[in-house]
């Protein structure tokens, strides 16, 4: 039997404990590149509410994982991604992509950005504002995809077609970042549980 001539995706391997050397060398302890990538998600010109997103990533024992690297991908406040098929133009300097690592001592991570707008779903539906997160670390064999939604978007979240594909309503809560104000700054808290009863919903994208 002849086979179709598609190629097959290269297999994933763990990013390992030293992912920082490649993707955030400053954190590994040395200075090599003119600029590291992923530190400025929104840029200076982006419209919308300035927010901070922070959290921890917990393992199956409930302990924070301290060697995680996360990447974020989001639309701007108008719901447009910085991409030729992103739905339009974005502000100069708006990238919508960021990269952050957890603190070696505490496991805390955080980044500053703008709150994204609603985006187009499939077949004319509307998706609630969200940030896509991709998580790699030692012990994670293939990157984990999840979505961060916002606690103050109650109605949009209730109508979000992706949230509504999750059969277990209790698990939907794992995707909602909790809004608070700290020193006048808007902060969303998003703790990720890799494993266990409160395991965060991860997607096969």
């Amino acid at each position, binding site marked *: 039997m002849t086979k179709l001539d598609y190629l097959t995706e290269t297999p994933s391997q763990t990013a*390992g404990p030293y992912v920082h050397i490649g993707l955030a060398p400053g954190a590994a302890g040395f200075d090599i590149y003119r600029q590291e990538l992923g530190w400025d998600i929104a840029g200076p010109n982006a419209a919308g509410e300035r927010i901070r997103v922070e959290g921890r990533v917990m393992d199956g024992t409930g302990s924070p994982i301290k060697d995680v690297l996360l990447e974020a991908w989001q639309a701007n406040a108008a719901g447009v991604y*910085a991409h030729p098929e992103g739905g339009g133009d974005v502000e100069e300097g708006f990238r919508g992509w960021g990269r952050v690592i957890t603190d070696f001592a505490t496991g805390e991570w955080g980044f500053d950005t703008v709150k994204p707008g609603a985006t187009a779903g499939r077949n004319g539906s509307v998706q609630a504002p969200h940030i896509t997160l991709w998580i790699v670390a030692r012990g994670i064999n293939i990157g984990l995809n999840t979505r961060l939604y916002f606690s103050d978007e109650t109605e949009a979240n209730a109508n979000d077609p992706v949230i509504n594909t999750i059969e277990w309503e209790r698990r939907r809560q794992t995707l909602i970042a909790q809004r608070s104000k700290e020193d006048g700054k808007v902060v969303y808290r998003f703790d990720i549980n890799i494993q266990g009863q409160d395991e965060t919903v991860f997607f096969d994208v």
Partner: protein
Amino acid sequence: MSTPANTPAEYYQRDRKQHPPAFTPTYKTSVTRSPQYSLISLEQTVGEISGPRFGHNDIDPIDNDLIKNYTHGGDPIGERIIVHGRVLDENARPVPNTLVEIWQANAGGRYRHKKDTYLAPIDPNFGGCGRTTTDENGGYFFRTVKPGAYPWRNMVNDWRPAHIHVSVFGASFSQRLITQLYFEGDPLIAKCPIVQTIPDADAIDRVTAKLDMNATIPLDTIAYRFDIVLRGRRSTMFENRLEGN
């Protein structure tokens, strides 16, 4: 709000049998870092078919030369190698202008990382990371030194085969991939609990770089070839058009 006229053409479903499962007990760290519930299947939308793009403002030409990009007056110790190849998608089309980042141990098997305490010495002329963007044919290359094998804490006497970590973006965030490149003929490949998380022998072969004598620079640098395949994408499809592609 973004309003593409049609639901965008998707990337092909990821074939999970080609990848390690999350839970691989012989690689012990995965045991508490593996989700136990099923992944929720997500039909792709604009956020999944788009992804970050990188340009010449982001990186410098020297960034892909690990022999020179951290020099402190000399070259690093070790076997001089070129690692090159193409980034393709599952339709065998080149993926141009995409970011490829690598990191690795030095020739003695030691990482320049504050958490690595292996007794092999740091090389003062070796940082251990590089990055480049693919050309219009999906081609990329790095010059570096061959990394050494090193022991790691898993079972008492586990050793990693020589390897280079590789991170690739592709045209969309759905194609995002991190893997490791091994070197053809290394007897540690068959013994490594991390390599062996990949369930399929053919798949392991596809993360093994091949000696490429034709790309070797005589009397100077030996070469290995490593092609990377990212997920393919459907042609733009109109609803109700049965022939699809």
